[in-house]
């Protein structure tokens, strides 16, 4: 019988959203042929959380879901003590989700010094510096199951994953959510005219879409192999970014008509010059419904 990769899925300050997202992975049977959870919050596993805490259970990868705080207690022990113990046992640590990576929404909670494992928003925290080299971040609220599982397979195969400055695999995070968005034509010609849930219009200009400034593969690797937020008619909320969640996610923050946050790497003058040119064109086709009744 082949040896499976042993994973500890540790949930700290979390809503368990990443756990639920993981359950949507479409090839779980195959996954469980290659991996096993020594402990998982909702999937049957060999050990209980009490066993994990009281023993030193052999393990290959530690997955951390949820934000980390100095005083957060899990099964009567400090969560950070569980991290300390198992980070010495495993060869890799993966922060699963935006809370475990950057602090996410739970950085607003009452716990002490809430952050991700290595970052509080964009700022690097120093506490777990010694674990930096063995950590990979999969941000997202929730994580894309394909991204997590493919990363785990890459670890299993010993591949040398190229990571960005937040330790996210470039394979999935070098792109923006704008890449592959089916509304790009509306973006190019600055046509919003969007109504939530409809197919037409770009949501960047008025409806808060952060696709052009958010790193992720949502429009390249579709969710449930079917869809993405922007394809379904909902703005990208920037859930993979350190700053998530911003406020007023359904409207674009503008100053005198100019979006405050521009597409990644685009200079303001260049953006305004291009916008001024494209705005001059009125493309009738893009003003109409795609499917006229």
């Amino acid at each position, binding site marked *: 019988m082949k040896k499976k990769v042993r994973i500890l899925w540790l949930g700290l300050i979390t809503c368990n959203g990443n756990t639920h997202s993981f359950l949507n992975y479409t090839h779980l049977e195959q996954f469980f042929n290659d991996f096993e959870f020594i402990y998982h919050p909702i999937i049957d596993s060999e050990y209980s959380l009490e066993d994990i805490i009281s023993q030193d259970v052999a393990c290959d990868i530690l997955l951390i879901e949820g934000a980390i705080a100095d005083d957060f207690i899990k099964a009567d022990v400090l969560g950070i003590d569980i991290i300390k113990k198992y980070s010495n046992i495993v060869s890799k640590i993966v922060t699963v989700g935006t809370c475990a990576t950057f602090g996410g929404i739970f950085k607003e909670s009452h716990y002490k010094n809430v952050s991700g494992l290595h970052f509080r928003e964009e700022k690097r925290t120093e506490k777990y510096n010694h674990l930096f080299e063995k950590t990979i971040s999969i941000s997202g609220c929730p994580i894309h199951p394909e991204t997590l599982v493919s990363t785990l397979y890459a670890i299993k195969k010993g591949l040398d994953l190229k990571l960005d400055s937040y330790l996210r695999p470039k394979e999935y995070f070098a792109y923006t959510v704008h890449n592959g968005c089916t509304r790009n034509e509306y973006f190019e010609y600055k046509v919003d005219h969007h109504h939530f849930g409809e197919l037409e219009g770009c949501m960047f200009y008025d409806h808060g879409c952060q696709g052009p400034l958010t790193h992720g593969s949502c429009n390249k690797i579709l969710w449930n192999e079917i869809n993405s937020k922007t394809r379904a008619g909902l703005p990208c909320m920037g859930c993979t970014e350190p700053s998530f969640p911003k406020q007023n996610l359904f409207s674009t923050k503008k100053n005198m*008509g*100019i979006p405050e946050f521009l597409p990644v790497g685009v200079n303001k003058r260049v953006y305004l010059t291009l916008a001024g040119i494209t705005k*001059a064109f009125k493309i009738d086709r893009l003003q109409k419904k795609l499917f006229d009744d």
Partner: protein
Amino acid sequence: MTDKKQQKKEQIMLASLGLFASKGFYNTTIPDIALSLKMSVGNMYNYFKSKDLLAKEIIKFVSSYFGKKIRAINEENISTKEKTRKIVEIYFQTAIVKPEMLDYFLRIYLSTREVFKDGCEGMICVNDFVTEIMIYFEEGVKCGDLRDQDFFNAFGLFMGYLGGMVFLQGENVLPKKLNEYVDDVSDNIYKALSA
């Protein structure tokens, strides 16, 4: 394009601006422009294939002139109030020193739309200038000096006011010299736009 060719094009545009201001746009012909520069008409067409194309290049040239001036102001580390005054000053100063530039913008570009309808749609040919005005507004709002509002509302107030004053000066109806209005006009604009 070589520097030499660009320099010649600019020379032609400057000569054209002068002739358009003195004789009017429709009364000025390509041979008139060529004659004023002691060029052959045939050679003129090496630089501009038609008067309409020349007209479009000139408005881009004027826009670029103002764009560069306002960009320099935008990049200064000064308050929005001071920027407002400097923009008004530049605009009025140009009206005094290079009246043909603003004359072209106000009397030809804005009122001869049939010439500009193909190739200068919307703000395309005045993009350099409008972009810098947008940046002035946006940064003013961001730092809390200006009130957030519809861009065109603010743009119309600012440029309409300046254009109106320059027009009145061109008609010789202003009781004072244009540069004597800089303080009051910039103060009025800033008060109207401020948060």
